[in-house]
C-alpha cells in the first residue's frame, strides 16, 4: 500500500523505486494530465447531447416556421386539419398525445413497480434473472407487432367485453369519460398498448435501482421488527425513489414519441372528445402518417410545426417532472430531520 506523503517523509534520502521507474513528481503530473484528458473527453461527450437537441430543434423550427407564421396561435387551438384547402390546426393531436401518455403512465407505473419489487424483494434468486430478462424483452418487440396484436386481439377484446362491462355492467357509462359509441379504436386502446410498451423501461431501471439498495438497510428495518412490506415501504423505496422516477421519465419519453402501434389503434380522427372510448390522434402519429406523402410546402411545414410543438410538450412535461422530483427530494430531506 502506497501512502505517498508518509513515504516521502519517512523514507531515506533516495526516493523509493516505483513501478515503471517514474519519479513521484512525474507520476503526479502524469495523473493530472490523464485526469484532464478524461474530464475533457467526458465533458465533450456530455455536451454532444445538448448540441444534438439544439440542431434538431433548429431544423424543425426552421422547417415549421412558414406554417406557424401563417396560422399563429390558432395552430394550437384549432382541430381543423385540411390538406386540400391548406388549413392546419394541431389541437386534437396535442390533446391525444397528452391523454394517451398520462393513461399509459398511470397504468404502467404500478405494474412496473410491482414486478420490480417482486423481483428484488420476494423472488428467489434463480427466478430473478429469467423473469427480469423476460420483462426486458418486452422492449424488443417491434412497434408494428404491438400494433398488429392490438388490432387482432386487444381491440376486439375491448369492443366486445371490456367496454360493455364498464359501460353497462358497472353503469359507468353515465360519466362523460366513458360515454359515447365505441368501435374499438380509441384513445383507451392506444393508452393500454402504450402502457405495455412503456412497462419494460420503468421496470428495468426500477429493478436495478432496488437491487442496489444496500442489504444493511433492509436488515436494519427487519431488526426493528418491520414486516416485509414495511421494510420495503420505509427502508428500501425511499432510497430508490429518485432512480425510479428516472425510470418513469424514460418511459414517458417512449410514450410521447411512439408512432406505429398508436396509429394502428387510435382511430386517427381529428377530434377532441371527453370520452376515453372515442377515437383521437397523437402528434407523433400525425407526423408519421402524413410525412411520406406530404406534398406541398405548407403541408410539410405544418407537419414540422407539429414536431416543434411535440418538442415543446416534451420540454414542459419534463420540466414538470423535474420539479416534482425536486419537491420529493425536499420533502424527504425535511422528513429526515
Amino acid at each position: 500500500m502506497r501512502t505517498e506523503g508518509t513515504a516521502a517523509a519517512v523514507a531515506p534520502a533516495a526516493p523509493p523505486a516505483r513501478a515503471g521507474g517514474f519519479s513521484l513528481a512525474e507520476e503526479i503530473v502524469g495523473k493530472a494530465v490523464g485526469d484532464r484528458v478524461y474530464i475533457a473527453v467526458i465533458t465533450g461527450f456530455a455536451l454532444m447531447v445538448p448540441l444534438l437537441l439544439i440542431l434538431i430543434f433548429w431544423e424543425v423550427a426552421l422547417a415549421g416556421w412558414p406554417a406557424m407564421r401563417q396560422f399563429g396561435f390558432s395552430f394550437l387551438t384549432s382541430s381543423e386539419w385540411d390538406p386540400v384547402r391548406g388549413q392546419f390546426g394541431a389541437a386534437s393531436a396535442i390533446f391525444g398525445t397528452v391523454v394517451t401518455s398520462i393513461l399509459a403512465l398511470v397504468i404502467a407505473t404500478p405494474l412496473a413497480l410491482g414486478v420490480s419489487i417482486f423481483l428484488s424483494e420476494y423472488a428467489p434468486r434463480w427466478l430473478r434473472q429469467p423473469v427480469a430478462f423476460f420483462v426486458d424483452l418486452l422492449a424488443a418487440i417491434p412497434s408494428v407487432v404491438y400494433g398488429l396484436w392490438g388490432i387482432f386481439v386487444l381491440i376486439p377484446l375491448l369492443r366486445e367485453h371490456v367496454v360493455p362491462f364498464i359501460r353497462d355492467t358497472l353503469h359507468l357509462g353515465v360519466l362523460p369519460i366513458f360515454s359515447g359509441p365505441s368501435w374499438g379504436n380509441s384513445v383507451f386502446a392506444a393508452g393500454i398498448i402504450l402502457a405495455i410498451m412503456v412497462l419494460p423501461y420503468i421496470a428495468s431501471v426500477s429493478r436495478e435501482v432496488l437491487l442496489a439498495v444496500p442489504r444493511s438497510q433492509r436488515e436494519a428495518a427487519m431488526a426493528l421488527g418491520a414486516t416485509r412490506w414495511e421494510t420495503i415501504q420505509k427502508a428500501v423505496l425511499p432510497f430508490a425513489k429518485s432512480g425510479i422516477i428516472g425510470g418513469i421519465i424514460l418511459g414517458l419519453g417512449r410514450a410521447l414519441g411512439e408512432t406505429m402501434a398508436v396509429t394502428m389503434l387510435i382511430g386517427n380522427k381529428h377530434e377532441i372528445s371527453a370520452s376515453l372510448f372515442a377515437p383521437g390522434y397523437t402528434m407523433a402519429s400525425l407526423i408519421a402518417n402524413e410525412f411520406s406523402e406530404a406534398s406541398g410546402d405548407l403541408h410539410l411545414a405544418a407537419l414540422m410545426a407539429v414536431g416543434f410543438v411535440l418538442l415543446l410538450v416534451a420540454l414542459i412535461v419534463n420540466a414538470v417532472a423535474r420539479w416534482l422530483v425536486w419537491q420529493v427530494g425536499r420533502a424527504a430531506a425535511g422528513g429526515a430531520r
Partner: protein
Amino acid sequence: MSMAGPQRPTARQRAVADRTMKTLRRRRVVNGIMTGVIGLAAVITTLPLLFILFHLVREGSSAVSVDFFTRMPKPPGEAGGGMANAIVGSLIIIGVACGIGLPIGVGAGLYLAEFKGTRIANAVRFLADVLNGLPSIVLGIFAWQFLVKPLGHFSALAGGVALAAMMIPMITRTTEEMVRLVPTSLKEAAMALGYSRARTAMTVVLRTATAGIVTGVLVSVARIAGETAPLLFTALGNQFWSLRLDQPIAALPLQIFVYSNSPYDDWRQLAWAGSLVLIAVVFIISVAARFATRSRVGAGSHD
C-alpha cells in the same frame, strides 16, 4: 441481579402488549395484502408478453426455416424467400449505432455522475430526457437532412447515426443512475490508494456499475433494433445483398414493415417470422452481453 423467574406482567405492560398485538395483526394483514398485490402485478406484467409471443409464434413459426436465414427475399408469389440480407444489415446498423452511441452515452452518463449538481449537468440531464421523447421519425428526418441530402444518396451509416441519436439519451440516463449507486466509499478508497480520477472511473466505478449499465445498453439496443421510421429515410432498404456503409442496406424492421403492409399471404407470414427472429436476435445479444459482463462481485450488496 436477582434471578427471579418470569414476573407477572403489570397492568401497564399488559396494555402495551395488547396494543402491540393489535397493531401487529393489522400490520400483518397489510403485509399480506401488499404481497398479494405485488404478486398480482408481476403476473399481469408477464401476461401481455406471453400473449404476444404466443401470437407471434403461432403466426410466424411456420415460415422460420433454414431458408429464412440463408436466402434473399423473393418477389411475391415465389416461394422460398428469406431475409438473410436484412438480418445481416440490422446487425451492421446496430453495430454502427453502438459504436457511436455507447462511448458518447456512457461518457455523458459519467459526466453527469461526476459533476452532479452543477448547472451544466442539470441542463444536460434535462435535455437528454427531452431528446428521449422525440418520435423516431423526427430523428430520421433530421438524419436525412444532414447525412443523406448533402451526400446525395442513402446509406447504412446514416441509419446507424439516426439510431445512435436515439440510443444516446437512454444510455446516458441509465449510466448516470447506475454510476450514482456506486458507494462513495469505493471511490474514496481507490483515490486514497493513489488512483487518478480517470483510473478510478475506468477500473473501479465502471466495473462496479457494469451490470446496471449493461441493462441500460441492452434495453436501448432492444428498442432501436425494432425501429422502422428512422431507417426509412436513411438506410432506405435494399432487396439485394450489401455490406457497404455508404449504400442503402436492408434491415429487419424495414423488411417486416414492407411485408406486413402487403396483401400477399406468403409475405405476411415472412413478416411474422421476421418479428420472431428480431426478438430472438435481441435475446441472443442480451444473453451474450450478460455473459460477457457477469460480475464476480455483486453490485451494491456491500456497504
